């Protein structure tokens, strides 16, 4: 068994840098999609504004609050584990997972309300719309879809962190895994910070 003072033998700094480097590549990955969005938006501005009226600002705002709060929870959970408050840390990580799931549930309702109206990639309803609207909804599904996938991955990874924290693998002096998971989660939060105004607030 490992004691509470167990120190990691791994290189903490290298692990952290590795995570940051991965996030730089993620930045450019999402950046490509934001580039596509801005080009088409500058070309089809009126259509983008019209199509964005389809978005539910209330649900989008709720999801933003949920993600921002989940980021707070996982940030505090790291400080908690560093202060030896294992129970509090596990609880906050659990809260983060629940909020991640809540985000996905809201997303599910948003997507299905559009799909019910016949708005989904290649649908007959969508193909009758103007090119700008087709592009808007195409980008909407791809960008929120890939972002949602990132949230789902985050939920799974954080669930593992809960297990590691509860079983004493993550401790006061060995929290590298949890910290790097937090970095990833905050990055996913940042992507949403940009997605929200671009898809919900441009009407």
């Amino acid at each position, binding site marked *: 068994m490992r004691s509470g003072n167990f120190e990691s033998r791994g290189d903490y700094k290298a692990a952290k840098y590795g995570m940051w480097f991965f996030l730089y590549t993620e930045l450019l990955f999402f950046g490509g999609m934001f580039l596509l969005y801005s080009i088409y938006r500058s070309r089809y501005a009126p259509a983008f504004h019209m199509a964005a009226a389809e978005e539910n600002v209330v649900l989008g705002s709720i999801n933003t609050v949920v993600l921002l709060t989940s980021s707070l929870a996982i940030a505090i959970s790291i400080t908690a584990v560093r202060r030896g408050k294992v129970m509090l840390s596990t609880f906050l990580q659990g809260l983060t997972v629940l909020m991640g799931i809540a985000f996905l549930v809201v997303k599910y309702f948003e997507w299905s309300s559009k799909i019910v109206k016949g708005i989904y990639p290649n649908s007959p309803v969508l193909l009758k719309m103007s090119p700008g609207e087709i592009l808007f909804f195409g980008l909407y599904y791809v960008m929120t879809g890939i972002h949602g996938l990132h949230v789902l991955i985050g939920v799974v990874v954080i669930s593992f962190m809960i297990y590691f924290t509860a079983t004493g693998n993550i401790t006061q002096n060995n929290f590298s895994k949890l910290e790097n998971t937090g970095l990833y989660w905050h990055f996913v939060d940042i992507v949403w910070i940009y997605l929200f105004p671009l898809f919900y*607030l441009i009407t």
Partner: protein
Amino acid sequence: MEHIQREKEVPVIGYGTFVAVWVALLILLAVTIAVARIHLTRFSVLINLLIASVKAGLVVTFFMHLKYEGRLLKGLLLLAIATLTAIIALTFSDVWYR
């Protein structure tokens, strides 16, 4: 020689700081929704992107504790952002002056 950094040598950020950042993020969210509501036409998008960047900055600085990291990580983040900006600027110059 630089020694291997250990977890316990990294400064702990207090709960209060995180809560303060979270409150600031929620206020900025309210501002961004309000800006979209009052329809400043062409400026509202720009303002909303600026607000989003302030929010992202807060998350990176405190939640991701970049404030306490060395020059390498900060410099590389700038490099990544600069690369993205260059790609976007070059693409736009191509699209606009085609």
